[in-house]
């Protein structure tokens, strides 16, 4: 049996191997997950009004000096409702200020939503047209970003935070920031 005769079989075996990989990958990954190119890069510039006081606004430079978490949510978002109790429980435990980004939402509806479900955020910024969201590479809610004291994005979580994902990924990421501080 010469190599030439076996070549088609070998080629086929490679394709099967690739598909096996693909199927296993499919089981452990969200096929709609897009990795963020912002990791280890500075967070984008922004200046956004506050939800509870639209005359005041916060920009990126205001948040330098301490790490912060940005949680993108909306009152229209069903998964955010699933995530909300987790945020309520963990908001104080993170040890890092939790800032909400009310994304593509109506501010009044958002206020009612928070009144109904609780407000875990220290500060809430409003991004009605989604411009800031685009700059952060947000493509769905909820998403959560961890930004360090120098304003560099260190971690992004896509989808709702769960106790497991917090323990597995977010808390270690926050801990890493602490060990880096001078």
């Amino acid at each position: 049996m010469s190599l030439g005769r076996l070549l088609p079989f070998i080629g086929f075996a490679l394709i099967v191997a690739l598909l096996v990989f693909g199927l296993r990958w499919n089981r452990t990954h969200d096929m709609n997950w897009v990795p963020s190119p912002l990791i280890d890069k500075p967070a984008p510039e922004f200046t956004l009004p506050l939800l509870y006081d639209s005359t005041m606004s916060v920009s990126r430079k205001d948040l330098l000096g301490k790490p912060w978490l940005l949680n993108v949510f909306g009152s229209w978002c069903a998964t955010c409702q699933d995530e909300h109790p987790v945020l309520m429980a963990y908001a104080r435990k993170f040890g890092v200020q939790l800032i909400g980004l009310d994304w593509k939402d109506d501010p009044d509806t958002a206020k009612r939503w928070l009144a109904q479900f609780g407000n875990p955020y220290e500060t809430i910024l409003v991004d009605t047209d989604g411009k800031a969201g685009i700059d952060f590479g947000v493509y769905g809610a909820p998403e959560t970003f961890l930004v360090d004291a120098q304003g560099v994005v260190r971690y992004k979580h896509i989808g709702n935070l769960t106790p497991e994902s917090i323990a597995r990924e977010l808390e270690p990421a926050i801990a890493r920031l602490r060990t880096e501080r001078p």
Partner: protein
Amino acid sequence: MLPELGQFALILALLLAAVQCTLPIYGAWRGNATLISIARPVVAGQAVFVVLAFGILTWAFLTQDFSVAYVAQNSNLSLPWYYRFPAVWGAHEGSLLLWILILNVWTVAVAAFSRHLPDATMARVLGVLGFISCGFLLFTILTSNPFLRHLPALPDGNDLNPILQDPGLIMHPPMLYTGYVGFSVAFAFAIAALLGGELDVAWVRWARPWTNVAWAFLTLGITLGSWWAYYVLGWGGWWFWDPVENASFMPWLVGTALIHSQAVTEKRGSFRAWTLLLSIFAFSLSPLGTILVRSGVLTSVHAFASDPRRGIFILVFLGIVVGGSLLIYALRAPKVAGGKAFRLLSRETLLLVNNLMFVCAAAMVLLGTLYPIIGDMLGVGRISVGPPYFGFVFPLLMLPVVLLIPFGPFFRWAMADWGAAWRSLRLALILAIAATIAAALIFLHAPLRALAGVAATFWVGSGIVAYAIRRWREAPAGRRYTPEMLGMILAHFGLAVFLAGVLITGATSVERDLSFAPNQAQQVGGLDFRFVGVTRVQGPNYLADQGTLEVRDGDRLVTTMHPQKRQYSGQQMQSKSDIDGGVFRDIYVALGDPLGDKAWGVRIYVKPFVRWIWAGGLFMLFGGLTAAADRRFRAKRAEADADAPAAVPAQVSA
């Protein structure tokens, strides 16, 4: 009661398929005539139960039995009766049952029209087909049972996806599957030949008509799918290189190489290894396509189901069937290149190049389609591969084919008379150049791609017409055009028509999104569109906003168009565009959203020559069917054996 009977019928069919794929093949191996002779009856038996199961599922839809989960998921009380029938194959489970039904139809046909085959060959062919049926039946019963109950029965079901409520749905999947499944017959013949250790090439002669018909139906299925996407999905496009589309295109590319390679093997005894391998590949791409489309491993607009478990099953099946076939090939394929010798300038060479280019094209489409997975594996992040890639590389690979195609019929076997061929084709070349220059002069701003389209169309078109004319002049009356040759002429001509459509429409289509106030007129593609207004319209199971637009060419009213936005009962919305189709251009209008102040958004396309794309496909369909009707293929067994050229062992191995 009936659905359970349906499940039972499937299980019985599976048992018979298991018998079909084991005993006759064993009998053929051992020369046991009794075991061989059970093949046909078992085939009939399996078909009976499959038809029964399919009939029961159809009955469940027609009687709107919502206790069957699949029926409840894909139809509801307001679904018009004529859509309940195609709703059977509107989703994963039912479409699989359709597949199995079609496989059985092909198998019965092969069993019925195989009197001229040696019994051992017939047994092996039916056995292989039985093995495939076994796999699909097992897959259905274990992972995709359409007869599962949902008790208590729901009072009403989900609606059939509005996109699927369309005549196209009735035709596209059955035609496509007929094509896909038909390649299993070529596969079965190839495996039968390998198992039987046959050195001669009679099996190719027997396989050819089946393969041509399968290819024709696959061409039709793809053409229908493209046509359907065009007028239902509303983005004016007809091909997106989506994984599901590619899954049907790859077997077509390999199948095209196969039908040509079979011709060479049958007439000259050469290319046996190519024909064997192409038969295996053409078939393998069907289950491969199933994995791509139904396992969730790739993202697609068209994806049927996203169940990795199903993907694993099909992958195992693919591994066994195709891996097994390729091992059998490695062990038993002819070790020595056979067939009559040929020179560098000969029809064989052209067809060898043809094989190569189509296989490369298929491999390229496979690579591009699978690349997101490769990207994940290499850890380079998620990569998207879309029309910019395929639309660039594919034409490059097909360029040699388009340039060489007119030479095919003019080159003789073994040694071509280059001078004669060139003399015959000179006129075609001149015509192509002249037409291109004329087009460039008449349409001053014609894009390069449109001019290339004109050149390619005239080159291929005149080339085949030139051959048809020469044949008319030189062959004696009554023997001018065999069906096989006529099929070739039709199919190659169809390619010319297709090229015209693709290249011209690609370069000259106009699309505009416009905002119209009532009674406002705007110009698109040289035509005037006047927006009259929007009214409410009631349909059988939907409520719609209907817009009215008057289209004028100068002062002459060309047509009035009525695009709709429909709200279906199940909260599903669909935009139903209106198309004014013509031989030389389509006008396509879709209604958008109200923009305030009684203004509405409207999308307008003017697409010249777009119908030539599908007309080309139809020509190819008829070409394939015509070629299959050649009486030579139906020669009686004795004649077939006498005619088949014995393999001439060559001095060198391939």
